[in-house]
């Protein structure tokens, strides 16, 4: 299995490459007033208005540093929620040090044994050279509340209609 690695604070995390639509350089975001702090803003991804969530802010309350390797991982909403149509709604995740993909065997991942109510999106853990790698479950990343904020249903109904 191929995973895309990135970093939050000093620790390495990973996303399954299958779930990643594309990695893009950071752009200029339109900030959303009165939105949660970890919602960085919205930007134009290939003609689609896409909200961006700052993973570092979400996990550690410190925003991502502005570096070359700080990039946006684009996820297709259809990969997270099978009820969504493919290629219409995307979610951007801002994270640091997105420069590597690693190929790891599935069985190397083990359960961390911890359930953190405030961070249900933390997944299994694997040992790699130079430390631990924890998977991020993007499906659990999008809580109902966040989903209401970022992808309101009314809009979708209108779009469908």
């Amino acid at each position, binding site marked *: 299995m191929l995973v895309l690695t990135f970093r939050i604070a000093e620790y390495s995390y990973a996303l399954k*490459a*299958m779930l*990643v639509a594309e*990695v893009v*350089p950071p752009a200029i975001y339109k900030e959303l007033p009165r939105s949660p702090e970890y919602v960085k803003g919205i930007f134009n991804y290939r003609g689609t208005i896409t909200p961006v969530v700052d993973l570092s802010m979400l996990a550690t309350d410190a925003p991502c540093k502005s570096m070359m390797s700080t990039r946006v991982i684009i996820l297709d909403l259809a990969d997270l929620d099978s009820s969504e149509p493919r290629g219409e709604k995307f979610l951007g995740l801002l994270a640091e040090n997105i*420069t590597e*993909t690693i190929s790891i065997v599935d069985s190397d991942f083990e359960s961390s044994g911890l359930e953190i109510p405030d961070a249900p999106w933390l997944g299994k853990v694997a040992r790699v050279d130079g430390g631990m790698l924890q998977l991020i479950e993007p499906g659990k990343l999008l809580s109902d509340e966040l989903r209401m904020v970022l992808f309101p249903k009314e809009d979708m109904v209108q779009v469908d209609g």
Partner: protein
Amino acid sequence: MRFSLRRKIMTIACGAAIVPIVVMLVLTSVLETRLADSVATEIRALIKSHISQVTSDLYEQCQSANELLTLETERALMVFNTLFEDGGEIRVLEKESVWTTINSRSDKATLGLPILMIGNYSMTSAKRKNNPLPLLAEAFSISGAYGTIYQRVNIEGDMVVVDSTTVGNEKMAPGVMFYSLDNKGQRNSVIDGVLAGGTVYEHEDGDDGIRYVAFHPLRDGSGLIVGMFAVYMQDDISENLHDSILKTSINKSGFVWVLGTKGVNRGKYIMSRSNNLKAEKASQVTDANKDLIFQIIVKAIRVGEGKLISKEYEWKLAPDEAGRMKLSVYTYFEPWGWVIGSGVYLDEYNGVKARLTGTMAELGKWLGLAGFVLFVITLIVSFYVSGLIANPISHMVGIAKMIASGNIFDAKKSIKMVEKVCPNARKAVRNVHKQENLDETGLLFLSVRDMVDSLSSLIGQVQRSGIQVTTSSTEIAASAHQLGATVGQQAAATNQISATSSEISANSGELAVTMGVVNDSASSMASLAQDGQDGLKTMIRIMEELSDSTSSITDKLSCINDKANSIEGIVSTITKVADRTNLLSLNAAIEAEKAGKFGQGFSVVAGEIRRLADQTSVAALEIENMIGNMRVAVDSGVVEMDSFASDVRHGADKASKLGKKLDGIMRGVRDLNPRIEQVNDGMSAQAQGAEQISDAMVQLSDTATHTSEALGEFNRAATQLNEAVQGLRSEVTRFKVSE
């Protein structure tokens, strides 16, 4: 302990106040004791005379009652005799009648007796029961006396009552036997008297002793004594006497009493009037009281009838109770065998005594209180007044002590303090011009104040004068010393001057020679300066060239800087490209993963691309570091070149200034030569002058030595003066007029 003036005054005042009170208290207590004693005696006498009077009154009353009773009984007897004489013949019939006797000696209750006839009346049990003889009833109505008829039973004279008008008298009820012999076998005196034919009078025993009975024989026609009759008065008299005695009261609980001395009544109360009759009666049974009562009876009988006896004793109402003191006066009344007395409890009179002594004690208490108040007032007043007298004096004593010890300053302070503190002193100060208003302490205060002022000013004056004299003498001595020193110095100076002037003359010669040498040196120095100036000019030129080349190096360095900047731009572009390439390789790898097996080859390519991008990034980073180092080096080179250029300019300036100075020196040296000639001439003239000065100085030195000796004499005199003044000062210093 020192007995100060103040204490003395207070002691006298308090003593004067307290002594009369103490004397009064002593007198009061003596008087109280005496008064209590005399009052007690008086009261006793009064009580005694009172109860004596009561007792003698009672005695009189009993006597007159007795007389009355005797007279009445005799009169009644006469009535009975007359009636019996008129009543008809008295005879005894042969016929017998049966009597049921009331008899204490014989079991035989019935007795047959010949019938006794008085006139027409027969004395039989049946006839006379509840129907007394009319004769007796008539006699009772006339005389008020009860009559009883006895019939003689036998020759011995035993009698039996056959008729009676008595009421409630068991001894004279019909059928009662009256034996001629008593229980001890003695003949009864009454029966004997009657059988002898006479009338017998008797105070009846067993009752209260005042029943007076007359017995008279009854004779038949032949003159034989066949019976007798008894007469006694109704109880009116005795009842009246009882009432009269019982009504007599003495004080609150005083009472009269009557004791029997005969028969069954011996030692018993016949009458008593007290608030608690039962208790009194009960109290008789106690042994102590019984003894007392018998003592009283025995004494009364021994002393004789009508004699008053007084006795004081303790009377107990109950055996276990505390007794009360009692005073009684009693006498013996012989006819009835009575001891008549009256008594009071003494403690009832204690109240009078207590009130009297209480008043005295009250007086004593008030005297004590008044004494204490008087003592306190005297203490306060004397404390204040003694303060007025003693305080100023003690202050004056303190001040005098200070003056004696020479501490006049403290004495003055103390006077000021006294003026503030002591009212008497304030008054003295206010009335300083009206001294006739002041008392002795005020005058004393003023005098001491004046004395201290005068003394203070005198001592102050003396001390100041002493200080002035000391100062002056010290100044004189100092001046003399200075003068001596000056003269010495002068001598030394003249000696020195003379030596110096000799030296000057010698040196002047040597100087002239040296001047010649200087002249030669100056000439050679001028040529050396010329050479120096030429060298300097060459140096200045070289420096200017150096400055020019420095500025050209600076320009080149800035050119290098610009180049470095452009290289940085290129490196940045390379970095961006590398970054993009990395991104591309990532996306490619992701896409390859998505493509599954078909993407595997592509995935390898993507990895290679990413590796190239990484290497490019590392190379770009290294170039960037090198450029940074180079720029730092260039910048520091520019700074150093700038400072070098300024140093060079500075050096050129200094060299040109040095050249100018060397010019000046050369001109100076050229001018010097003619002046040195002039100096040489001056030197010779100076040598001659110096020798003349030396001679004059020797003469001056001699004079100075003389002056110095004279000053020594003067100095000794000044020292003596100073010593004298010091002696005076040390004496005066004892007096302290300021802090």
